């Protein structure tokens, strides 16, 4: 499954557009990460715990988007966009969406 955020692929032809596919995942941090973040607030530095959390979240969102694309019979997702927002205390929603297409 080809996933890309460009729109016109130089060497392939789009046969059919299959509409919007989306994948999202909402994850919460736990107190362990939070306490480390609190300490880092004093010492500074990268919040590795949070970075990992959001990376896992993004990977899961992409997976779900690809699952939707496969379900409608596409073999590529073009023009992918990401969006992050906080929707609950301490939880962030990672959202990926794009156009499912059949390439030749």
């Amino acid at each position, binding site marked *: 499954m080809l996933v890309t955020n460009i729109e016109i692929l130089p060497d392939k032809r789009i046969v059919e*557009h299959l509409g*919007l596919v989306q994948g999202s*995942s*909402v994850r919460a*941090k736990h*107190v362990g990460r939070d306490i480390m973040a609190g300490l880092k607030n004093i010492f500074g530095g990268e919040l590795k715990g949070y970075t990992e959390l959001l990376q896992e979240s993004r990977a899961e969102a992409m997976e779900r988007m690809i699952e939707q694309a496969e379900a409608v019979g596409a073999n590529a997702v073009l023009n992918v966009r990401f969006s992050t927002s*906080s*929707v609950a205390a301490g*939880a962030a929603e990672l959202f990926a969406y*794009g156009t499912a297409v059949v390439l030749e």
Partner: protein
Amino acid sequence: MIDLIILLMLLAIGYGFGSYAESRHYKSIITRENDLRHIPAITSRFPPQNNSSDATLVSGSVVISVDYFKRFIATLRNLVGGRVTAYESLLDRARREAILRMKNEAAQLNSDIIFNVKLETSSIHKGKGNRIGSVEVIAYGTALKTSK
């Protein structure tokens, strides 16, 4: 003892009304998606040059509130981490509703397709920091008529 009882009552009300509203909403979403299936929405930016006309910006937005039960689960999840499944369904509903409202607007203009669809999510809260009250989703794109 009293606060425990009040808490349980609020949770029961939140769960009862929340899940009823959710299942009703999902039924409505699935019906309307089938009705509007003739209007695809895609994120590509370049429509076919020669046979499309009447480009109009269309948008749809919705604000859905969080019930007590979902908020309680999110608070517990904050302690142990992991996926907040209660919020997943909430956001799924909100997004699909926003897209449907956008397609509705396009349908009223007799358009056939919507290009360059973008989605934005944000949370609306009372401002005390951690208390998220509701979730807003906007979907917008350009509606076009294609001549067959």
